[in-house]
């Protein structure tokens, strides 16, 4: 991992990976959603609304996976002081928050025809909403740390680690408490879904994961470029200010 501690080496790889992730992500996510909307069959019980699954489930997984990655980056920053870990965590937080919000809104839209209500304060929906607020709080903390000149502060990293407690709560909420939300249809190595639903769902998840990765790389490149520009401008200002 420390092989990528050098920003120049990381940027060389990121410049190559960003268009690859973006292009493949657009093709896979677009193809899978077209398949899900126009080709895959309607569900016997849920009818046409089951087509929302190809968007709702990948964004839910990425909202949760995003925080898991953010927590790992925070751990790496705190324990090994990896110089890119704080930048990676900050870059993950924005797409993580966006996908958590998309998951909440598409779930609410799906809930109206499926359950007869837009929202219920049950374990799954509430813990997912908490995850969205955790992302917002992380972004506010990281921005405040940056403004105070602390750069990659330890406080957002500690918050990132503590917030990971919510991830197993989201996952097990449908098993621990009564919920309108269905229990997991897919677990390690087995699926309760028929292949005609499962295949486009897995392709859509792969596509959205690549898009998530592309956004993280773009945001990391932006943060690195801004900090390099500021460092150069500071060096030049100091050189001008120094007496000859």
């Amino acid at each position: 991992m420390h092989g990528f501690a050098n920003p120049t080496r990381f940027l060389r790889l990121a410049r190559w990976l960003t268009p690859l992730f973006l292009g493949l992500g657009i093709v896979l996510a677009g193809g899978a959603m077209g398949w899900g909307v126009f080709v895959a069959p309607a569900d016997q019980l849920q009818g046409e609304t089951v087509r929302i699954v190809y968007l709702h489930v990948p964004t839910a997984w990425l909202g949760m996976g995003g925080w898991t990655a953010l927590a790992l980056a925070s751990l790496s920053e705190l324990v090994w002081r990896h110089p890119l870990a704080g930048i990676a965590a900050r870059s993950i937080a924005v797409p993580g928050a966006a996908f958590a919000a998309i998951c909440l809104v598409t779930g609410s839209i799906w809930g109206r025809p499926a359950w007869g209500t837009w929202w219920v304060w049950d374990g799954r929906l509430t813990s997912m909403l908490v995850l969205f607020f955790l992302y917002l709080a992380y972004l506010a903390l990281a921005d405040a740390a940056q403004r105070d000149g602390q750069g990659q502060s330890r406080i957002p990293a500690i918050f990132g680690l503590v917030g990971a407690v919510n991830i197993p709560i989201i996952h097990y909420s449908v098993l621990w408490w009564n919920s309108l939300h269905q229990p997991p249809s897919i677990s390690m190595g087995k699926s309760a879904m028929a292949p005609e639903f499962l295949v486009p769902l897995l392709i859509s998840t792969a596509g959205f994961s690549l898009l998530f990765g592309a956004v993280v790389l773009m945001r990391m490149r932006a943060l690195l470029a801004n900090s390099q520009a500021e460092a150069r401008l500071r060096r030049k200002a100091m050189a001008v200010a120094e007496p000859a």
Partner: protein
Amino acid sequence: MQHEALNQWHFVAAAYAVGLGGTVLLVAQSWMAMRRAERRREGARGK
């Protein structure tokens, strides 16, 4: 007892509009922020 007549396709279309719109906005904003920052770095190098 009256039941609401819900057109399921309206809900599918609304969910996809939110999901795709949000994703496109996120990707476009991240791309523009990256390009702006990289131009700024090149500008700082040239000054």
